C-alpha cells in the first residue's frame, strides 16, 4: 500500500533536486535518483510509485527548475498534499500532471510512514477506516489535468483552457 513521505515547511527546489544533479549535469537517465539527496538520502531508493508527498507551507519555493518535480514524477509521484505552494512550483506540478492538493488540516493529521490510499479523481484519501476529503484544484487546472497535462491540452485544442479562441 502507498505510504506518506512527510516533510516540513519551506521545502525548496534545492532540497527536492540539488542543482548539481540537474539532468544536464548528470544525464536524463539518472537525475531522479538524486531526489532529496541532501535532506533525505534514503528517499529515492525507497520511494514506491504512488507514494504520497505531504509537505507544509510554501512548498517548492526557489528555482524554476521543472526537473525537480519531474524527478519526483519519474519516481512515480502522482499527487502532493501541502499546506501551501510556491507559485512556479505549483504551475510546474500542474504542467507535469502531478495533482497539487492544498489541505492544511490533512497535512497536520498525516504522519510520515502512514499507509494511505488516494482516489485522485474524487479527491478522497483513506487511512485505514479514516477518510479525508481533499478540495480539487481550480477548474482551469482540472481541465488541463483531464487531458493529462497542459501540454496535451494545448496540442489537442491549440489554445489554453478557458481561452476563447486559438491563435
Amino acid at each position: 500500500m502507498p505510504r506518506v513521505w512527510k516533510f516540513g515547511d519551506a521545502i525548496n527546489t534545492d532540497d527536492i533536486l540539488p542543482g548539481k544533479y540537474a539532468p544536464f549535469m548528470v544525464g536524463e537517465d539518472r537525475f531522479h535518483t538524486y531526489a532529496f539527496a541532501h535532506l533525505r538520502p534514503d528517499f529515492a531508493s525507497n520511494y514506491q510509485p504512488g507514494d504520497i508527498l505531504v509537505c507544509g507551507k510554501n512548498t517548492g519555493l526557489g528555482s524554476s527548475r521543472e526537473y525537480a518535480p519531474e524527478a519526483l514524477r519519474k519516481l512515480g509521484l502522482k499527487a502532493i498534499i501541502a499546506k501551501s505552494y510556491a507559485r512556479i512550483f505549483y504551475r510546474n506540478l500542474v504542467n507535469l500532471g502531478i495533482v497539487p492538493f492544498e489541505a492544511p488540516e490533512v497535512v497536520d493529521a498525516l504522519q510520515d510512514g502512514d499507509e494511505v490510499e488516494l482516489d485522485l479523481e474524487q479527491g478522497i484519501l483513506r487511512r485505514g477506516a479514516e477518510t479525508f476529503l481533499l478540495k480539487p484544484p481550480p477548474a482551469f487546472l482540472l481541465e488541463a489535468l483531464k487531458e493529462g497535462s497542459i501540454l496535451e491540452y494545448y496540442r489537442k485544442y491549440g489554445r489554453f483552457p478557458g481561452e476563447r479562441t486559438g491563435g
Partner: protein
Amino acid sequence: MGLTLAEKILSKRAGREVRAGELVVVEVDQVMVVDSIAGSFFKRLEQLEATPRFPEKVTIVIDHVAPAANVEVAKAQKEIRAWGQRYGCRVFDVGRGICHQVLIEERLALPGGIVLGSDSHSTTYGGIGCFGSGMGATDIALAAASGRTWLRVPETVKVTFRGQLAPSATAKDAALEMVRLLTADGATYMSIEMHLVDGAESLTRSQRLTLANLTVEAGAKCGLVVPSGEILQMYDLPGWLSPDPDAVYAREVEIDLSNLTPRVAVPFYVDNVEEVEKVRGKKVDQVFVGTCTNGRLDDLHQVAEILKGRKVAPGVRLLVIPASSQVLEQATADGTLLTLLQAGATLGTPGCGPCMGRHQGVLAPGEVCVSTSNRNFRGRMGAADAEIYLASPRVAAATAVAGYITTPEALEEATYA
C-alpha cells in the same frame, strides 16, 4: 478604482481592463531560456509538435554552467547552438554573461513589456518596469510555441522605499530588509510594486535590478519598480506606465533607507535576515561576488573601493565573477579589475558561477561562504552542510579582508585601533 502597475501592463496587453484575480492569456515580448533548462524545453516543444512561433522572441543564454564543466553539459550546450541556428533563435554563448543582465543590456527587456524566463530570478526585469516572471520548461515551451502565456492577474503589495541610502547601506540591504518584512511566502502569487520616494528616486538602474531580483524570494510573480530617476533618461517610457494614485493594494509596507544598516541572510533561508552586527566574527572560507543580484559594475566598484591597498585574508578565497562581458570590459578599462586582482581576488567567466553549486567554487563540507547572490538554501553551493550568508558587495569585500563576517566600517576601526 485605479490600477496597479501590474494590472496596467496586463490590461494594456490584454486589450481590456483586467483586475487582480482574473485569468488572462497575453502575448509575451521575449521568452528567455537558460542552458540548464534548454534540454527540457526542446523536449517539450517536440511533445507539442511545435516550433517557435516567433523565433526573434526566443533567446537562449548559456550562463548557468559556462564554460561547460563536464561532457553532459558540453553536449547540452552543443545542442543549444545547433538548435538556435536551425530555428533562427538568438543564442548568447559562453562568456556573454548572466541571462537577466544580458537581456537588460541588449534591450530585449523594456519598460512596459512582458518577458518570461526559465529562471526564477526573471523578476529582475521589473527593475526597469518590465513585467518579468519565471516559469518552468513546459510553460516556457508553450509560450515559445504560442507566443502567449496564461497568468492570473496578481494582487499587489506596495513597498515604499523612502529617503537616501545611508552611507553604509546598499540596495542589497534594502532588498534583504524587504524580504525579511514580507517573509518567504508573504507575496506568493503577487506583484511587489516598489515606489522610490523622498530621495530614493536616485537609485540607479543597477540598484533597481537588485531590488527586483530579490522579490521572488518573497514568493512574488513579478517585482516592479515604478520608473523614475535615471530610468526616465535611459528609456522611452510609455505614457501609461505608472500605477494609478487610487490603485488597490493587498498590503503596504515602508522601508526607510536613510537609517538602514548592513544586513545578512543567515542559513538556510533568504528571509532569515539579521543585522551584520549579529553575526560579526563568523569565520569564512570563501567570499563570492557576482550573480544577477550583485555582479554589476557598481558592485565591483564598491568591492574595489574597500580592497584598494588591502589583501584578502590568508586562507580565504575571494571569487569575483562579473555579471556580463560588458561589465568585465568596463571593469577592465577603468582599472577596477587590477585593484581586485592585486588584493588577491580570483576571476571567473561572466555567468552564474558557483551560485547553484555546479562549478567554479563549489563548497566542501563544513565550509562557510559569504555570497552576494540570492539564495542560501541548504546545499545550494555544494556540500549539504556548507553555509551561505547572503550580503552586499561591501560586506563581502570587508569579510574577504578580515577573514570573518564584518562591515567596512568595523574593518576600518579594527585597522586603526
